[in-house]
């Protein structure tokens, strides 16, 4: 009976979502405060119902209830408990449930942390979130019910979770990514609410900003975790593959990055308002499109699940309703938005405008590259694929331009830059970076590479530029302490994130140009050179894991006459699915990772072995972490709380005379 309880909770959540979207909206248009006030409790209720539903499915996994079809397909008696928990979101139905739950959690967050927001506005935001909830819960109920039973013939054991997903990375990657994806729906809901209410102003931007930033941070963490997981679990040492599903997360990230910067202009100067709304619509629509691409199986991808076309049609329909509906609303309302004020050509507004242009072009090129095969196929042009060379050709030059904006933008004043002498230190820093960057590749393994030099120049220039910006502000305010009090957390967040970008760029440039990489045939006793090391294949043994059997090799890595480390890569065969998995041995380091993996047995005790040294690869994720962390720092800015404080004091004022 327990599973039916979960299903019932899901149906209840569906009904609540309908109420949540209809009642407050009706209340708003008829000006009935009692109806408007239902929005927050309904959002909390919906969150509760979905949490119950989710907990029931999780319980099904924990107690091995194989009469639930989803559990039977994705779990096994031998599966350790922590993977049974993460298996809840290991396949289609469960990951949708997680999606719906996270959407509801964002709704709960908006109802709890929006005290500075007028009730009318909050109710509109929650109403829009409710509508999105209807779409996703309906999708589950009608096409992908996670609680479907296998009765009366429940299997005695399950088919096991895909071994690729039996990894700690999977425990965190999807929830983080979904927090980001779905978090963009809050930015979208705020934009829709502002359009409905006809108040696209600086206040709207201030409300919307922290939500956008935090969603962006989660998205950043999610993408970075996914890339890291791919690196050590499935990628044979690669960290990004321009796979359609990776692109599906990168496109909304690029648009959300543009949105954050555009919101800054809208909040500070009241400009770019229509553009900001359009970006908010685009960011969320693109994350829906991403879901469509992943779930419909129209593209060849490592993430594609076996699936049926009905699901694709549903999401496509939903996508059309969301994009069509919001653009119609936009067309009706945005025409009335006037842009007050002007700005000079040399102003922070200009730099941010061009930043938005570049980020949009990046997003469009990734989108084109991802959809091009679909387009050609549907036009009868046959099956084609677009490879990494395309994306690299587009991204390298655009990133270079973007970095120069990041260097000049923060030091430029709003409205009109009066004194361009402030740019001088930046240009000097640029020259220093060029010299240092051109020399740097000679210090690295492998041939001299101009791409590596370019990456170093950009990264260094960005770090120096940020340092100069910080110094100017300290000089402006007289002391570090005054400065840190005056500029606000927003600036610290920006500096952190920008340095993160530099760190990531440097990591990418090093890995892509100086990786030493060898695929070899080796048997026990063989010795091979790898960069400054000597790798010895010592022995091979059979071991037994909780739900797999494995061949485990022991390699000793020698540095001259000193034993540096012994590492043990494995080749596993999972019992239930008979799937083969590679567990690479990675020795992480500040300046390089040592990567050793077993390929396949070649007979005579020999194995195909991959040996590589990946310089600075961890900097890619360290930089991404800094970016996401910068976002978190930025939302602690006092001014987001000040709105609330001011409102509280207003209430006190009102109370006081009485």
């Amino acid at each position, binding site marked *: 009976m327990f599973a039916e309880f979960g299903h019932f909770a899901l149906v209840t959540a569906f009904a609540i979502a309908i109420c949540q979207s209809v009642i407050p909206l009706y209340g708003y248009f008829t000006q009935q405060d009692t109806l408007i006030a239902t929005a927050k409790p309904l959002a909390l209720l919906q969150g509760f119902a979905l949490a119950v539903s989710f907990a029931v499915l999780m319980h099904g996994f924990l107690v091995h209830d194989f009469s639930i079809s989803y559990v039977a397909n994705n779990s096994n008696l031998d599966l350790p408990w922590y993977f049974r928990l993460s298996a809840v979101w290991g396949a289609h139905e469960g990951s949708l449930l997680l999606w719906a739950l996270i959407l509801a959690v964002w709704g709960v967050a908006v109802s709890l942390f929006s005290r500075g927001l007028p009730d009318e506005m909050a109710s509109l935001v929650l109403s829009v979130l409710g509508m999105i909830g209807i779409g996703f819960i309906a999708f589950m109920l009608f096409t992908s019910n996670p609680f479907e039973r296998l009765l009366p013939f429940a299997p005695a054991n399950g088919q096991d979770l*895909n071994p*690729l997903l039996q990894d700690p990375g999977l425990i965190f990657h999807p929830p983080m990514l979904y927090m980001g994806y779905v978090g963009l729906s809050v930015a979208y809901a705020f934009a829709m609410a502002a359009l409905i209410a006809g108040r696209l102003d600086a206040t709207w931007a201030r409300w919307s900003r922290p939500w956008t930033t935090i969603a962006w941070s989660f998205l950043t963490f999610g993408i970075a975790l996914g890339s890291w997981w791919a690196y050590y679990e*499935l990628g*044979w040492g690669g960290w990004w593959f321009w796979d359609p599903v990776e692109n599906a997360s990168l496109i909304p990230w690029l648009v959300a990055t543009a949105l954050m910067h555009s919101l800054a202009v809208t909040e500070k100067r009241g400009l770019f308002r229509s553009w900001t709304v359009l970006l908010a619509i685009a960011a969320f629509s693109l994350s829906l499109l991403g879901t469509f691409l992943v779930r419909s*199986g*129209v*593209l*060849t991808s*490592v993430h*594609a*699940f*076996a699936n049926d076309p009905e699901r694709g049609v549903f999401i496509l329909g939903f996508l059309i309703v969301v994009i069509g509906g919001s653009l119609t609303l936009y067309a009706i309302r945005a025409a009335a938005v006037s*842009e007050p004020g*002007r700005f000079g050509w040399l102003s922070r507004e200009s730099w941010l*405008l061009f930043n938005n*242009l570049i980020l*949009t*072009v990046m997003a*469009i*090129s990734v989108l*084109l*590259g991802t959809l*091009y*095969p679909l387009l*050609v196929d549907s036009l009868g042009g*046959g*099956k*084609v*694929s*677009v*490879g990494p*060379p*395309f994306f690299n*050709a*587009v991204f390298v030059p655009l990133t270079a331009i973007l970095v120069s904006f990041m260097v000049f933008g923060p030091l430029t004043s709003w409205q009109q830059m009066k004194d361009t002498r402030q740019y001088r230190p930046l240009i000097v820093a640029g020259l220093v970076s060029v010299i240092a960057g051109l020399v740097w590749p000679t210090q690295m393994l492998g041939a001299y590479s101009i791409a590596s030099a370019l990456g170093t120049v950009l990264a260094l220039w960005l770090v120096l530029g940020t340092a100069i910006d910080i110094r100017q502000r300290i000089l402006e305010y007289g002391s570090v302490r005054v400065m840190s009090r005056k500029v606000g957390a927003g600036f610290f967040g920006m500096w952190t994130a920008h340095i993160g970008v530099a760190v990531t760029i440097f990591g990418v440039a090093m890995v892509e140009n100086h990786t030493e990489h060898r*695929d*070899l*045939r080796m048997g026990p006793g063989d010795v091979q050179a790898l960069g400054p090391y000597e790798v010895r294949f010592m022995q091979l043994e059979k071991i037994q894991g909780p739900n797999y059997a494995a061949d485990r090799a022991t390699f000793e890595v020698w540095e001259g006459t000193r034993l540096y480390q012994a590492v043990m890569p494995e080749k596993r065969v999972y019992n239930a*699915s008979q*799937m*083969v*998995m*590679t567990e690479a041995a990675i020795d992480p380091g500040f300046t390089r990772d040592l990567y050793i993996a077993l*390929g*396949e047995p*070649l*007979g*005579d005790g020999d194995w*195909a072995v*991959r040996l590589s040294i990946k310089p600075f690869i961890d900097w890619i994720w360290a930089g991404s972490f800094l970016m996401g962390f910068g976002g978190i720092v930025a939302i602690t800015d006092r001014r987001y709380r000040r709105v609330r404080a001011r409102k509280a004091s207003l209430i006190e004022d009102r109370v006081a005379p009485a």
Partner: protein
Amino acid sequence: MNPKRKQRLLIILGMVFGLGIAVGLVMYALSQNINLFFTPTQIATGTAPDDQFIRVGGMVREGSMTRDPSSLQVAFDVTDFDHNVRVTYTGILPDLFREGQGVVVQGRVHNGLFAATEVLAKHDENYMPPEVTEALKQSGQLDKIMGRN
């Protein structure tokens, strides 16, 4: 025209111009970097171009795999059950590579042999790359595979 409108017009013109150039360059880069897909039959009958980077999909023919005893070189047949293509590859095969399973290979045809630079196998037991499905559909052998599962 008032200065505010003029500025806005200039910005919009600039943006359209910039976007136009960008999209043009992107489309050019795309046309230089697409890999066409062919079926084993198309290669056996010579429809596929020689020495051009292409993709081929099909099933790995049972019992067709051979290994070089001293290096990482392997050779196997990719089939759509009408025709076979001999594929050579040097390197590590993906974990899910098996005889009798679907596979997509990338590389070039030279003298009737397909020299692969990359071999892609499916990552999920129930998942078949769309290219492979397409190749089998064209050769009319899809039902045979589907019936077996």
